[in-house]
């Protein structure tokens, strides 16, 4: 404990040097901007900046990159809330209630709560990382393909709680998402599926162009197709900050989101993406007024935003304890220091204490910088909405195309985005909810790979799922959730499920 404290002091002595502090600030600023650029998420952001850090010293490089990483997690929520445009995969859920709040003139509180939630979750996450890393890393390592499969199955069950629409429509959309996720090279056999001779499709359809298209572009089309524009109300200055009630409503979601996000974040791999989906599902499930979700419930912003930031921090735990990356983002970070001849490994922390603890301390600093950077800017961001649609929307469209293209320099991605915009427009006209498509697309490839990895490991025996304690517990929980969600369908005589009492959200 004392040792940790001393190491942290060393870390702060590094992180608070003016030069490092400046880079942390620059990183956060770039990150916030990158996060706002539609389509460019944290991973794309730091990958693009990686080459630029090769000329810097390793500590500066990692501080800069982690600033970008954090900043992008913050920035991603801004566009989701203001213009229903998910900056990255994790903010898809924020779009739903965040944008609904904007339409009610409550964009300020939504942005503020996203920033506060992110700050709290980020700080709790770093604390957890520092104190619990060795214990949790052991847990993380027990998470193999069978456990992953069980977790993702649970993720699928969350679908039931995700939308207010009819169950068949939700399932249809989830099925659509799952099918999109089937496109591309099959990781197990190497066969290419449904690529229709388009090489770019061999890599699969990314969540980014789909999410930007379904949510953002479709919104632009819908607005343009309306005769009389329903302008979002311009909020007065006093309305920029969340009210006391709203803050109170957000405490629970932020705490639960932080915990859930952190735990999911620890798991090696890309599971962190689903943390915001699961958080949203939980909040909706335990809420006393679930019908408010989808119509501007602040809990629907606070929970997922906290979850994705906590998950971002949790992802560093295996890296910290083992010294090797276990997720794509940490892999890029490690690459940034490998270029300087520093070999990653379990000895990394012992051999490079300044580097390591400087990095941890800079995460604390980064969180504070971001809060300072973001809260005062809420007013500025909100006033963006005063720009007339005729000018704002063409700009947004241009940024969408730019952002989508720059992630992997692929024109095919831009076409996918535009096509998904059209699909999203039609589906919304017919009253389908789009979030299940995003969840299905995210889950399908991961679920398939881990299921087949498990079966390869067990030579085809499904017993592998019940031989492993963590997997059994999660499958059990999943089954329980399924039963609970089936209850209203089985016992119709009971009090009506809220789902049948609330209609679909009118497409705005």
């Amino acid at each position, binding site marked *: 404990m004392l040792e940790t404290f001393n190491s942290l002091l060393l870390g702060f002595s590094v992180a608070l040097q003016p030069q490092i502090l400046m880079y942390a600030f620059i990183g956060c600023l770039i990150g916030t901007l990158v996060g706002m650029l539609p389509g460019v998420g944290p991973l794309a952001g730091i990958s693009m900046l990686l080459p630029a850090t090769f000329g810097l010293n390793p500590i500066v490089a990692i501080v800069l990159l982690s600033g970008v990483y954090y900043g992008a997690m913050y920035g991603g929520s801004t566009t989701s809330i203001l213009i229903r445009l998910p900056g990255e995969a994790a903010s898809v859920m924020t779009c739903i209630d965040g944008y609904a709040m904007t339409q009610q003139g409550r964009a300020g509180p939504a942005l503020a709560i996203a920033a506060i939630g992110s700050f709290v979750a980020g700080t709790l996450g770093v604390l957890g990382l520092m104190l619990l890393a060795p214990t949790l890393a052991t847990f993380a390592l027990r998470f193999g393909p069978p456990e992953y499969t069980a977790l993702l199955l649970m993720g699928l069950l969350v679908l039931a709680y995700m939308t207010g629409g009819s169950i068949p429509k939700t399932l249809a959309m989830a099925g659509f998402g799952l099918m999109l996720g089937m496109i591309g090279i099959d990781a197990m056999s190497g066969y290419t599926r449904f690529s229709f001779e388009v090489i770019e499709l061999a890599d699969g359809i990314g969540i980014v162009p789909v999410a930007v298209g379904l949510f953002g572009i479709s919104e632009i089309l819908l607005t343009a197709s309306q005769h009389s524009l329903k302008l979002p109300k311009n909020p007065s200055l006093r309305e920029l900050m969340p009210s006391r009630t709203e803050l109170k409503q957000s405490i629970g979601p932020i705490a639960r989101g932080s915990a859930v996000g952190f735990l999911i974040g620890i798991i090696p791999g890309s599971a962190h993406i689903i943390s915001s989906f699961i958080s949203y599902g939980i909040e909706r499930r335990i809420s006393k007024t679930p019908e408010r979700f989808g119509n501007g419930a602040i809990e629907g912003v606070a929970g997922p935003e906290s979850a994705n930031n906590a998950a971002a921090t949790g992802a560093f735990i295996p890296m910290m304890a083992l010294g090797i990356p*276990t997720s794509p983002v940490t892999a890029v970070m490690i690459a940034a220091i490998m270029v300087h001849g520093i070999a990653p*490994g379990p000895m990394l922390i012992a051999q490079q204490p300044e580097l390591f603890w400087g990095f941890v301390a800079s995460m604390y600093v980064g969180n504070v910088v971001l809060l300072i950077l973001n809260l005062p800017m809420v007013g500025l961001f909100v006033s963006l909405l005063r720009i007339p649609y005729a000018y704002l929307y063409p700009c947004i469209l241009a940024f969408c195309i730019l952002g989508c293209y720059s992630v992997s*320099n692929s024109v095919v991605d831009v076409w996918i985005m535009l096509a998904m915009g059209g699909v999203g427009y039609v589906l919304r006209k017919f009253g389908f909810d789009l979030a299940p498509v995003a969840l299905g697309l995210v889950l399908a490839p991961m679920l398939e790979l881990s299921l087949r990895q498990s079966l390869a490991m067990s030579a085809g025996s499904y017993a592998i799922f019940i031989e492993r304690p963590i997997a059994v517990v999660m499958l059990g929980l999943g089954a329980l959730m399924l039963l609970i969600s089936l209850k209203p369908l089985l016992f119709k005589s009971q009090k009506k499920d809220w789902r049948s009492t609330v209609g679909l959200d009118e497409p705005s």
Partner: protein
Amino acid sequence: MMQFAVRMAAGAACCVAGAGVFAQAYPSKPVRIVVPFAAGGPADIYARFLGQRLQEPTAQSFVIENRPGAGSIIGTDLVAKSPADGYTLLLMSNTHTINESLVPKKPFALMRDFAPVAPINYSDLLLVVHPSLPTKSVKELVALAKSKPKGLNYASSGNGTPYHLAGEYFKSLIGVDIIHVPHKGSSEARTSVMSGQVEMMFDAITTMAPLAKAGRVRALGTTGTKRSTVTPDVPTVAEAGVPGYEATIWLGVMAPAKTPRAVLEKLNSEITRITGRADVRKTWNEQGAEPLSMNLGEFEKYLNADIAKWTQVVKVSGARADQ
């Protein structure tokens, strides 16, 4: 107008004088090296190293462009379709020579659509097992695998990667089936082996050596023809019981097929000069890489031999990735 005429004349002169003059002028503008792998990986890092070193003698910048995706095919296809003027180059690895037989249906053929420029270096892989496995040597591992066919699993970073084929080659030489468990990327595969989810793996020596030293995994052998400078106390797989085994990761540079011979010669001599330097060898050795230097003819022969070798392995193992 006058200037235009001069330029035209100069252009015409160039054409008449042919490749010799062209080579002296090359490169007259920045050169793009397309890396069909993600930023931060070994291919990217060595490409940047090379790009930086080429800048000095040629007085032009060599820009690295990462175009990852579909197991290197997206970026490679881009170069295949680029003008053959020496201003777009491809950074290749033996993923490309493996793909020749593993993925027959792809939009390009390596030796038809590309001209060899120069090899860069090769790195050994390290055969590691989880410490819970009782085997302390390659011989014991082979014995264990033979005692329970299909009972062992090996991890790789994905189908068709050199790590995957290193495993397939191992299987084909010892004649026992070991189940391949592909992952999405090296880091996930590594986590699986460290946690004992999957028993063994062939992995990059630089990342695995520190983990072996810390006891997280047990190193059984390196995959080169001689021991690695990084792990001098670990025998090669060949000397430890599987004679003839060799599976490294090597990198090289290619250009679109019709690139003028003089440009290829010029690039080859500049790159060979860099890979031949003692300080470069020292730096790379510390990272587990050994420089390779060949002239154009030697490199072409090397490529053909490598393609033939992997064709054989792919045939024996039945590994396939076509449609």
